[in-house]
């Protein structure tokens, strides 16, 4: 395992994200859904919220992972309330699991995020599994 186990539990400092109608509209356009209303965030918009401030890249840098080796393996969202244009949200992200398969050739990083509104409480949770493909040691 090349990722240091001490990173298990690593959390980014909580950060704030302002959701504007323009951002939702740009996201809808990018996913080919320009006819949808930009007043409510589409289902996978939580990914854009949690990725704010380059947060995913910062986690990978902290863990010392080369971006060329990473692939997104799994993604899960839980929806507890709608995210709307104008919402001011607080985001927390944490590394909740690290494991490996195939004698370390494949490493997995689990990152969980929570997205909260000051008055409406927890609106969503995200769980992401990142796959790191390590170079296989070649026989001499």
């Amino acid at each position: 395992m090349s990722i240091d186990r001490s990173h298990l539990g690593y959390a980014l400092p909580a950060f704030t994200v302002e959701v504007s109608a323009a951002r939702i509209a740009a996201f809808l356009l990018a996913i080919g859904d320009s006819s949808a209303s930009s007043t409510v965030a589409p289902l996978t918009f939580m990914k854009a919220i949690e990725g704010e401030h380059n947060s995913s890249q910062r986690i990978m840098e902290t863990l010392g992972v080369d971006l060329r080796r990473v692939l997104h393996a799994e993604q899960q969202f839980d929806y507890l309330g709608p995210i709307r244009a104008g919402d001011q949200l607080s985001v927390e992200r944490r590394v909740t699991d690290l494991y490996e398969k195939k004698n370390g050739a494949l490493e997995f990083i689990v990152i969980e995020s929570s997205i909260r509104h000051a008055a409406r409480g927890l609106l969503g949770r995200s769980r992401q599994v990142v796959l790191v493909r390590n170079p296989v040691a070649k026989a001499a």
Partner: protein
Amino acid sequence: MMDIDTAALGECLAESITSPITREQLAQYAAASGDSNPLHLDPAFAKKAGFEDVIVHGMLGMAVLGRLLSAHFAAHTVHKFDARFVAVLPVGETLRCRARLASREDDGITLDLEALDGQGRLIINGSAQLAAGI
């Protein structure tokens, strides 16, 4: 429109197909989502990573599945939505998405989701839990 109340388990309730996904779309998605990993934008970087060309963001594929849910199950509220990215999708490929009825509960339904490329290869599978009512 398929009637969810009478559909058999396993029945396909909704289906969609995209146009070939272009480099411009990947750049647009990178800007809108904040995922600027060069695997999706820079062919030279993608080659160094072992791919022939840039690959489509897994999350763009999941977003297309999400559109299928929003478009066809607007009378439901999505509580859970998950995806496993089984294979990478090269730029220029289409995605065909399907939602099948997996189970019916008192207060909602569970769907099995899949996204296939133009050759019918499985790219993403997943599921969604929906509650009746919005």
